[in-house]
């Protein structure tokens, strides 16, 4: 959409289609990057506050004179970011220098590419491709290469453990996530995110919005499986075994510091954003308003889409500050013996449902 529009615009100005393509893509990428950075900044602040409130603390604050983190500590994340950026970038002497340097950016790319197809509103989307769902699932797995690279290149046993665990975990949880996202695809008959959302407009019995999650019991279950698998894919508690700080110190990030570590951090929050976006688009009606028929203009759409994402990210934080961590084999147990069979059953059930009810 945005990119298409920009290409059209630039092709009028420049002769070469190549130049106009490059320009369009880079200009479209800038807001995405800003969005990622903003997302991480806000999410870090919110996470600090949410965790603090859940623990009867108040988190970063600043009231009086002196060097404080601003009113209610809003400047805390900026201070964090500045600290991370000016910190020395240490590379262990025995590390594999090239891989060590490259790894954060591979993870970053994986998260960054995912945002490109998120439908922020009925008109705001960077690029609208036919296989949007498939694309997000595909680029989501790019990150694991970066993690394995980081773990291997650090030449540290903790990092290696973290990387191995992470690889096993992400690859396993791709399956239930993939199987669950098939359900919206089955019901809508498309992989295009925009048409998937448009399918969900209207209402059931006049009260509930016609979102896929409310469509039938199987899709209701599928949403939870998808969401929890998504939490696992983003390596968050209770599935944070790759970085399990009480076991593996910091997992695959042990040797990283400064800017490279900040990139990891950015990617983690971007990943959360992407999977929440996919869950919102696939199950929760994307930019559709929760009150059927009202507030459905594109601007409201932006608002609804973001509030759904923010809610899902909040739930992830809520998980993190409530639950203990699973063990490696239990993690696999949950995936292979619980999620995958139920996800399979779901597909079967939705098929039957569609056949009988329509």
């Amino acid at each position, binding site marked *: 959409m945005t990119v298409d529009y920009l290409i059209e615009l630039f092709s009028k100005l420049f002769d070469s289609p190549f130049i106009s393509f490059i320009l369009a893509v880079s200009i479209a990428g800038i807001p995405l990057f800003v969005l990622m950075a903003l997302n991480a900044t806000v999410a870090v602040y919110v996470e600090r506050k*949410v965790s*603090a*409130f*859940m*623990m*009867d*603390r*108040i988190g970063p*604050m600043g*009231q*009086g004179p*002196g060097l404080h983190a601003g009113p209610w500590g809003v400047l805390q994340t900026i201070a964090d970011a500045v600290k991370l950026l000016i910190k020395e970038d240490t590379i262990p002497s025995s590390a594999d220098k090239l891989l060590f340097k490259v790894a954060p950016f591979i993870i970053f790319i994986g998260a960054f590419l995912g945002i490109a197809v998120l439908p922020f509103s009925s008109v705001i989307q960077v690029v609208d491709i036919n296989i949007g769902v498939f694309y997000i699932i595909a680029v989501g797995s790019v990150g694991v290469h970066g993690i394995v690279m980081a773990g291997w290149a650090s030449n540290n046993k903790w990092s290696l453990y973290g990387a191995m665990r992470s690889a096993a975990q992400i690859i396993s949880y791709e399956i239930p996530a993939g199987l669950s996202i098939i359900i919206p695809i089955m019901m809508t008959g498309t992989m295009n995110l925009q048409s998937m959302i448009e399918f969900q407009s209207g209402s059931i019995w006049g009260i509930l919005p016609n979102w896929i999650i409310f469509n039938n019991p199987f899709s209701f279950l599928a949403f939870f499986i998808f969401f929890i698998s998504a939490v696992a894919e983003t390596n968050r508690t209770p599935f944070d075994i790759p970085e399990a700080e009480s076991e593996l110190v910091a997992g695959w990030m042990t040797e990283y510091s400064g800017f490279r570590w900040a990139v990891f951090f950015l990617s983690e929050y971007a990943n959360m954003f992407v999977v929440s976006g996919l869950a919102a688009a696939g199950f929760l009606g994307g930019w559709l308003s929760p009150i059927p028929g009202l507030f459905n203009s594109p601007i409201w759409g932006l608002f609804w889409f973001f509030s759904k994402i923010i809610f899902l990210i909040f739930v992830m934080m*809520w*998980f993190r*500050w*409530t*639950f203990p961590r699973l063990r490696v084999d239990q993690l696999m147990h949950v995936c292979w013996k*619980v999620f995958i069979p139920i996800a399979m059953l779901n597909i079967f059930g939705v098929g039957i449902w569609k056949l009988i009810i329509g």
Partner: protein
Amino acid sequence: MSRYLTNIYDTVNTLWTGMQITFRHMMNIRRDNVTLQYPEERWPRPERNIGFNHEDYNVIRSRLHVDIDDCIGCYRCERACPVDCIKIETIKSDRGEDIPKVNHTGVTSNGTKKGFVVSRFTIDMSECCYCNLCTYPCPEECIFMVGGPNSSKHPIDYEFSETDRKDLIYQFAKKLTPKQKSGLSPIEKKAEA
């Protein structure tokens, strides 16, 4: 199979219970908050603790302080200290007589006549283990931990960090020059006379 389903039910149920608890705490943060925002709010904080009064404390383990005018140089605190962080040196003098040249008062506030000029009284607070053992044997109650019930003698001080270790050595007695030292002890005085 039923066990499988019970397990899933248990998991969902217990996790949901936990999530409710954390959510409740998040919502009630104004009531439940326990954080003390240090530079603005300082201990003791009567409105938040269980309700005991600062003056009612038996003692507050904070910095040691010595009222050197009351010290009779009996060395009891030095002997009581398990980590030897108190160092005392004394010079014998006329019992109960003021010596203005070294700012020495002859009689303590309790009325005891002093027999020694305390020429050195240092406490190394970096070694102090805050056991409070030195304060009990003191016959004049001149060594004490500041604050709490002793607030009238010295206000509370728990913020005495320093950038140099040497600054943590507190010198309560004024260092005497050799000139001041000479002629203090009665024997020397006699010899002079």
